[in-house]
């Protein structure tokens, strides 16, 4: 069996293309419902619980989620399920208590930076908007690459010889361009219908995607269990030295010592997930789009199920891929050689390469359409969210809110295209050496470390001040140091200084959170705002309907 052998045929391509055509049609059709900026950004706040839940599931089960969860399943096996457990517990807590989300929806703001202005000042809003967009765009910087890698692996796509020749003759370019072309095509497709329809087209397509994707996930899981068998899953631990205890720092499935999870990673990931589940802008935008604060709370409670599914099912596929490759030593050798060689194959490719061999043609097309759906549903929501922040929280406040609805929609559309171009550039350039989830957690920390004290303090602590908020936002920027190139640089400096200190991304993430929190408290106590502020009043009066 060859590593790139696949069951994907012309029939599967037809299914995927038919799905994409329907998505474009929906984008054009939804445009008729865009009347004002609230309609464009939060679907006029008309979402009720079931629709909100379906669309939130569509957004949060992205292809990138599937890819990083499956990658963790492949590299850390059962132990990686601690993230699913964390999300379950945290969402249950938020859903039962309504902590933060209830008051946030009560404030009737459109975006989190808008809350910054209401509670603190316009300057905090603009800086908060800039930090949020920076973190968000960096965070989704590898979405395109992960999506394209899935498609290339599952379809067995190889670029035609004539294309290689054209690239060589015209640009003197020797590298393969297939992955890059697929990335560009996917981006253009998402840009097209997000620009046209805004949140309304996002909601409609998310609903379609929820049905296709949800069904695809269940079907794939059944095939994986059928292929590997219950004995096979058990042998992952008993025979293949699989990793199952996340408190241990040693991953027994690898030869490298201390490359497991352990207490520091467990702590850092818990902090990141608590804040991300409450305040990650795309999730928060769904909270702000529902009809009432009570629905916002219920939405979190109901989200426990899809969030559990989005983490656990792809991990199951990743563990299945681990068991499959280990029971086919020749294939495993080919895969390890391809990973070592660099290029476009890395540990993320294990799951799609595995699925391409076990899912029959026809069904593979449906599953791929589901995954493309997952890719687009996340991409459209994220693009809309970041561009909405650029319009509402950076450009509009700087122009003293003298923009008409039409101008705001136009700026948002331009921002969507500009963000898309940045994503493509970053995705083509940046090489991630850690796992994909770690990259997401680090880039997310840039925003999360600041927003946590600012929003919680704003909602529950009357002495919170603008000075504290500025310090917290700037403190969050230190999270960038957790990226691979920065860590390598820092550790090289420590070695050059002759110290035995070595940092890793989890330590830097925890330090960023601590720095922002302490800075916020100290800044608020040392430089209180001139005007007295009641944290409750900021939630009760709203500028937006």
């Amino acid at each position, binding site marked *: 069996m060859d590593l790139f052998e696949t069951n994907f045929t012309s029939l599967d391509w037809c299914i995927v293309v038919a799905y994409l055509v329907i998505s474009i049609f929906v984008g054009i059709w939804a445009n*008729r*419902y*865009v*009347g*004002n900026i609230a*309609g464009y950004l939060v*679907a*006029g706040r*008309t*979402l*009720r*619980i*079931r*629709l909100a*839940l*379906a*669309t939130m*599931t569509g957004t949060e089960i992205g292809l990138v989620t599937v890819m990083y969860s499956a990658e963790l399943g492949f590299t850390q096996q*059962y132990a990686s*399920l601690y993230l*699913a*457990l964390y999300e*379950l517990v945290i969402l249950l807590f938020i859903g039962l208590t309504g902590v933060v989300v209830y008051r946030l929806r009560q404030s009737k703001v459109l975006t989190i930076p808008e809350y910054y202005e209401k509670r603190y000042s316009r300057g905090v809003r603009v800086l908060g908007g800039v930090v949020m967009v920076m973190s968000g765009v960096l965070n989704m910087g590898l979405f395109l690459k992960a999506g394209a890698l899935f498609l290339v692996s599952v379809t067995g796509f190889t670029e035609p010889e004539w294309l290689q020749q054209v690239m060589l003759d015209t640009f003197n370019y020797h590298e393969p361009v297939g992955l890059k072309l697929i990335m560009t095509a996917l981006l253009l497709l998402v840009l097209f219908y997000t620009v046209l329809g805004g949140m*309304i087209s996002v*909601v*409609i397509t998310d*609903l379609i995607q*929820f*049905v296709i994707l*949800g*069904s695809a*996930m*269940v079907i794939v*899981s059944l095939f994986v269990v059928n292929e590997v068998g219950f004995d096979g899953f*058990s042998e992952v*631990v008993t025979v293949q030295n699989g990793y*199952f*205890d996340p408190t241990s720092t040693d991953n027994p499935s690898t030869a490298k010592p201390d490359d497991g999870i352990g207490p520091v990673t467990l702590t850092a990931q818990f902090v990141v997930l608590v804040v991300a589940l409450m305040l990650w802008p795309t999730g928060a935008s769904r909270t702000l789009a529902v009809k009432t604060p009570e629905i916002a709370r219920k939405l979190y409670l109901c989200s426990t*199920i*899809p969030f*559990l*599914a989005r*983490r*656990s*099912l792809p*991990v*199951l596929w990743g563990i299945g891929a681990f068991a499959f490759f280990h029971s086919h030593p020749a294939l495993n050798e080919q895969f390890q050689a391809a990973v070592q060689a660099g290029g476009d194959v890395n540990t993320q490719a294990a799951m799609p390469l595995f699925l391409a061999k076990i899912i029959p043609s026809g069904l593979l097309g449906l599953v791929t359409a589901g995954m493309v759906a997952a890719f687009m549903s996340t991409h459209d929501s994220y693009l809309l969210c970041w561009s909405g922040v650029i319009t509402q929280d950076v450009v509009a406040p700087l122009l003293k809110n003298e923009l008409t*609805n039409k101008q705001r929609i136009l700026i948002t559309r331009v921002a969507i295209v500009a963000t898309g171009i940045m994503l493509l550039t970053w995705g083509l350039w940046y090489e991630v050496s850690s796992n994909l989830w770690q990259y997401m957690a680090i880039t997310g920390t840039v925003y999360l470390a600041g927003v946590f004290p600012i929003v919680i303090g704003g909602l529950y602590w009357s002495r919170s001040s603008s000075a504290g908020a500025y310090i917290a936002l700037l403190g969050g920027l230190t999270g960038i140091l957790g990226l691979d190139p920065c860590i390598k640089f820092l550790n090289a400096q420590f070695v050059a200084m002759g110290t035995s200190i070595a940092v890793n991304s989890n330590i830097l993430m925890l330090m960023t959170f601590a720095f922002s929190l302490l800075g916020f408290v100290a800044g608020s106590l040392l430089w209180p705002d001139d005007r007295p502020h009641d944290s409750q009043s900021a939630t009760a009066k709203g500028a937006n309907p």
Partner: protein
Amino acid sequence: MNAWMTLWTIVLAGGVLGMVGLLLLVTAGAIRELKESLTELSADVAEASDSETASK
């Protein structure tokens, strides 16, 4: 099978069964709610175009 593996089996089974349940319980209601939301948005668009015409 130790306690960790029992826990992970519950998490995995919960994920599969949860997704099946979600698809069965939410889909029909969500489609109905989408129709209601689109009706409300249509009214908003009509209102917005009326006010634009009046202001001209």
